């Protein structure tokens, strides 16, 4: 991986790109800068305040869920025909966001994109937390959540098992696998840094804690050798996985017969959308974090610009998806599909559809301009817009398709309740609570991998030296 592709020590003249790590850093300074955030930096009032805000958000979620378990899903806006509402919208949204991390660490690793090294760590953490948020919904959206374990295959006295033809079961497996593998991937990446923290820590308790987590990592060449193989294999496995997860999620819709769901373009365009929103979230988090914790040296304009480019590309794919959907609606000549198109454009939810197009397709075109790719302020704003847009996309797909399907007599409208909103905002609170804790207790960028980026990390072919 990274170490097998030495970056030339002196940057070639023609390459004027911003480096992925600012000059003037040594092995020690990197370790110091990163680990000090965890070990030395005092807890600031701002951090505590922010944490309390996020934490109260998380508690709002718990409250909303408590009431949900008492009363039932009827407290939400869902109804017949709109059997799925915010719960599934949020689920898909979060899962999508959860794609960036593993994608960055896996796919970019395979593609030998050295610029990934400084953002992969918290991108992966972000992934974990996003998946955790997503995981809440399939569970609680059921009418009888206390029986949701029936979706897992286990021998039981009923001699009855899950129904493996159902996309929801596929979901269960895809999402739980994704969660597990992301966790493993993330932890494997952490081990060397945990060792660093262990060795840099002064407080004996902290020493012991990191010591246990590092499991006695001592950076032996043998360890590194196996470590790199394992990491490479994980990346290799995670790559198809990350692509499969949102494909499977899209099957929830594509496999059904609902007009607006039953379409073969969903898998690719869901995956693209996922990466789209994922990177948006990464950028949303990266910009403030690097500012607050002075990480500009490691998370440079190069990273941000590349992310912007990725967003632009995936955004275009998503746009293509929308176009094809509309085109097929017209081209198929199927009365239900063509009505779906009409209904999106002129129906009661037309404003939502319009704002979706604007925030997801039109505004991101600004990324063609270098100014918007490099201005952290605009980058941040645009990422937020994209996040909203991607949420709207799921709203359109789920609600607008369901509310007017085959039988005119059974058409309906969807009105989210305050409980819907509390649950949604609550998960955001939960997500940020975890992020808040993460940046303080674990190295937010990978120390070991950053070190490999330093010129002095690169060795010449031993033989030459030898003779």
């Amino acid at each position, binding site marked *: 991986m990274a170490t097998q592709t030495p970056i030339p020590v002196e940057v070639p003249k023609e390459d004027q790109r911003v480096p992925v790590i600012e000059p003037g850093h040594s092995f020690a300074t990197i370790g110091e800068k990163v680990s000090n955030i965890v070990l030395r930096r005092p807890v600031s009032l701002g951090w505590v305040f922010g944490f309390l805000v996020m934490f109260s958000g998380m508690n709002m979620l718990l409250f909303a869920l408590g009431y949900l378990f008492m009363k039932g899903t*009827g407290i939400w806006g869902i109804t*017949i025909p709109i059997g799925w509402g915010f719960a599934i919208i949020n689920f898909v949204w979060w899962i999508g966001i959860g794609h960036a991390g593993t994608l960055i660490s896996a796919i970019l690793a395979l593609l030998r994109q050295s610029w990934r090294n400084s953002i992969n760590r918290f991108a992966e953490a972000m992934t974990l937390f996003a998946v955790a948020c997503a995981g809440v919904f399939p569970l609680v959206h059921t009418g*009888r959540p*206390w029986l*949701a374990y029936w979706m897992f295959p286990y021998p039981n006295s009923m001699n009855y098992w899950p129904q493996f033809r159902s996309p*929801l079961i596929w979901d269960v497996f895809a999402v739980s696998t994704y969660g597990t593998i992301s966790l493993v991937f993330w932890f494997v990446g952490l081990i060397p840094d945990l060792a660093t923290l262990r060795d840099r820590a002064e407080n004996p308790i902290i020493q012991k804690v990191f010591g246990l987590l590092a499991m006695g990592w001592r950076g032996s060449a043998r360890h590194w050798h196996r470590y790199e193989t394992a990491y490479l294999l994980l990346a290799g496995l995670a790559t198809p996985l990350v692509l499969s997860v949102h494909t499977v999620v899209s099957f929830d819709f594509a496999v059904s017969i609902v007009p607006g769901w039953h379409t073969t373009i969903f898998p690719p365009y869901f995956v693209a959308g996922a990466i789209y929103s994922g990177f948006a979230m990464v950028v949303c988090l990266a910009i403030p974090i690097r500012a607050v914790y002075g990480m500009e040296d490691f998370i440079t304009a190069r990273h941000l610009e590349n992310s912007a480019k990725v967003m632009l590309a995936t955004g275009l794919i998503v746009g293509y998806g929308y176009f094809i959907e509309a085109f097929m609606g017209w081209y198929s000549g199927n*009365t239900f599909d063509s009505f779906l198109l009409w209904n999106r454009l002129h*129906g009661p939810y037309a404003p939502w559809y319009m704002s979706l197009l604007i925030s997801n397709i039109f505004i991101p075109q600004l990324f063609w301009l270098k100014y918007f790719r490099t201005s952290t302020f605009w980058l941040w704003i645009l990422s937020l817009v994209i996040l909203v847009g991607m949420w709207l996309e799921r709203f359109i797909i789920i609600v607008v398709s369901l509310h007017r399907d085959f039988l*005119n007599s059974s*058409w309906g409208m969807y009105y989210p309740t305050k409980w819907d909103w509390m649950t949604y905002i609550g998960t955001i609170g939960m997500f940020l609570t975890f992020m808040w804790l993460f940046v303080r207790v674990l190295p937010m960028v990978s120390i070991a991998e950053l070190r490999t980026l330093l010129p002095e990390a690169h060795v010449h072919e031993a033989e030459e030296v030898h003779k």
Partner: protein
Amino acid sequence: MDENSKLKGGPDVCPGKRGQLDLATVKAEIEETSGPEYWRSLEELAGSDEFREMMHREFPKGASEWLESFSRRGFLKTMGASLALAGLTGCTKLPDTVIVPYVKQPENLIPGKPMYYATAYTLGGYASPIIVESNMFRPTKVEGNPDHPASLGGTDVYAQASLLDLYDPDRAQTVTYMGDVRSWTAFTEAVRGPISVQKGIAGAGVRILTQSVSSPTLAGQIRDYLKANPQAKWHVYEPINRDNVNEGAKMAFGEVVETRYDLSKADVIVSLDADFLYAGFPGNTRYIRDFASRRNPDAEMNRLYVVESTPSSTGMKADHRLPVRAANIENLAHVLAAGCGVASSATPSLSDQETYYVMAASKDLQDHGGSSVVIVGDHQPPALHALAHQINAKLGNIGKTVFYTEPVDANPANRNQSLHELVEDIRGGKVDLLLILGGNPVYDAPAELEFASALKSNAVALKVYLGTHNNETAVLCQWHVPEAHYLEAWSDARAYDGSASIVQPLIDPLYGGKSAHEIITILAGQPGLTGHDLVQQYWQKQHTGGDFETFWRKSLHDGWIAGTTYAPKNVSAKGISPQRSQPADANAIELNFRRDPSIYDGRFANNGWLQELPKPLTKLTWDNPVMIGPAMASRLKLSFKDVVEVELNGKKVKGPIWIQAGHPDNMVTLFLGYGRTRAGRAGTGTGHDAYPLRTSQAPWFASGAKLTPTGEIYNLASTQGYQTMETPDGSDRPLVMETDLEEYKKEPAFAKEGEVPKELTLYPAVDYSKEMYAWGMAIDLNACVGCNNCIVACQSENNIAVVGYEQTLKGRHMHWIRVDAYYQGDRNNPKGYFQPVPCMQCENAPCELVCPVGATVHSSEGLNDMVYNRCIGTRYCSNNCPYKVRRFNFLLFQDWETPQYKMMRNPDVTIRSRGVMEKCTYCVQRINEHKIDAETASVREGKDVRVGDELKTACQQSCPANAIVFGNLNDANSAVNKWKAQSRNYSLLAELNTRPRTTYLAEVRNPNPELKPESQHERSAG
């Protein structure tokens, strides 16, 4: 987990089932123990007044409070008692109260097997003969009486829903005096004095106010009393009355006669504002059957012309419908009469369209002299009825399609007049003892009478009210005696054809309710006589020759008394041609009053099943709208949800607008029965009360109403999202396949266009032909008249919950079968269609594929099973159901607390709890019952016994139109196969290749070739 355990023991319980064991023991011990000591024991158990009083002390006075402080403990005691009492009715072989069960009833009960009893349900004096299913002595289901000509197995929504009234927890629980709990004995003591005083003065101060009475026994009782006390008076009032009909008959024949129609022989039917295909119209059950039997395009098809004011389901079935303001219908009638050769006093001028229409209609009538009929709505003026009699006479329909008999009503006095006299007497201080037997005059009397104030004034010394609920009238009377439900007390009644049925109870009064009969015995000073005695005595007198016991048993068993059907009588229409009343001002807004399709005159306001029953056209629930037509709406810039104020001679009511396609212009319709103030938990405060605008001068329609928008907004809870098959993008969806007779003859298979060839699938098709059974259903859209019967029948059979206004508004109603209503064409006079939609039981069920836990899967017989106890409630199945027939328990919709409901529920159907999906099962509990019977039989008799067409689903069984047929597709001679073989047969959304087991027979209209709808549209457009 807590919920988990709760789930095991709790919600999934089926109370009925739970009850079985205890009930069985109770029943058994009742069955075995012999007379006297058994009596004593039950007295101790519950019979005695002391017990009741003790128990009722737990109920605070005043309905409003005790709804909240509803004492469960007290109730459970009552239940314990009444369960035992229930047993008593069922099976003690006491000589004086033998109840003879129907066909299936075994000599002595088999626990776990239901029994069936014949009895009759009475509405507005007209009896609907019914069979009631009783599980462990709890009445659980009402069915029509297949052997009775007035039912032929069908029922109407009110009869179906009357079961819920029996178990209504808001029913009056006890005798009260000025709101304080008293015992029945206390009451009899208290009234004895005044009654004896009245005896002295020939009952001069006694007034009896009843609703329409067709009970020979009761009428006899009252008459006897009046004979003994000539000064006493009997008044009759009912808001939904047939005054106009009777007056019209007097006008034509000089006497009140009952007009009965035989629609099976009518080729041409002209309805002048008569909604004869919906519950509430006397004989509607039979009329629907006869009408539907003539809608088969492959046989002689009848033709229906409907000229109507307020759009009705009858109008929607018309081959030619003409929306006209109520007041103008008389004009049309005169032209029609003239066209039929009746010398009419006047020839009013009509619009081109009207003339065109009426001419064609009258020509059609004349072509079918003797095989046609003109029916006039109850709310049209007497003159019009008289005219109709003349037309029918002229066409030679009398004796062929139209018959005149004795009035079914025992006292066909003019209702409004009768009440007028009563109020005068009250105001004149002539009344000392007022007996109000049923009804709710304080709420529904004509406004100008101010009945309430009359009653409040202390002019009347003693006011006694017999009523099921502590309602508006009850609070204004000192004494309130709880009235026994018809399933609790003995009586008798006459059906529309005059045939008398014995009303036999299936359960002892849950709250010691009394029947009118018993009240009269107190009045007549013959206490101790039970309803049973009275009824039996009466018929003993009528009975001539033969052993009375066998006659009595037979009458009970059959459900009616042989030979009591009124023979047609010859009446000659007088020559006089009725004058037409002054034509109303064309510009003034006409205000119409109509009975509510669901809660009638308000008596069903507390009946959740009916409150939540989507009204046939609007699909509204829990409310009554201010109904106007599209033209008027656009003129006044009114839209849905707008709350308007309707004013008539200074009186005002406020209500939300509903724009009804096909509603005549410049006319407003208000529906009666809502805005109750003391109805109960379900009825109180729903909708608005239209009675204050209704006077006895203009009981049905009045001119000169004012409409003023209030700027308020109110959401009406309609269960149907969109009411045309044409989608907003202008494309048409082939949901109800429809054509007219000519086209049909040319292309009989027109409906099959969407069908997909069987081989069009990647998978090997599952083969059901080898199975013993393959269940399927077919629904004839031509026959269906949108009477809603199936919905209530299904609700009752399958323990379907009532969810209330808010939830219905959200679209969470639970009906397993719904009747979609679609309009097509000109909004001012559209074509209308009804389409009942149960679960389609698709062979390639989209719902099953997506269920993660396999809670909905296919049975070997092709049923789409829904396993509630496996369901975790992802709602994915519902999303993926193209027919949206699945219903989800978003909250805990079932009432687990109220003991009455536990008694009411069908023990063979699981009660669904919160978070569980449910849907139509083709009444799988009935299928299994029949299968098990057939199989045990085949083992016992050693031959192959199979379930045949005797197996009926609840919707099918109660359908008065025979529009639904269900059966075994693997049985070549099954009725369902015959239907599905017809060329009209098609499956809904066939192109999805879901292969529904439920299919439809396409609708074929029979328009008059001279009166093509399109040409009609041109005119209406012009």
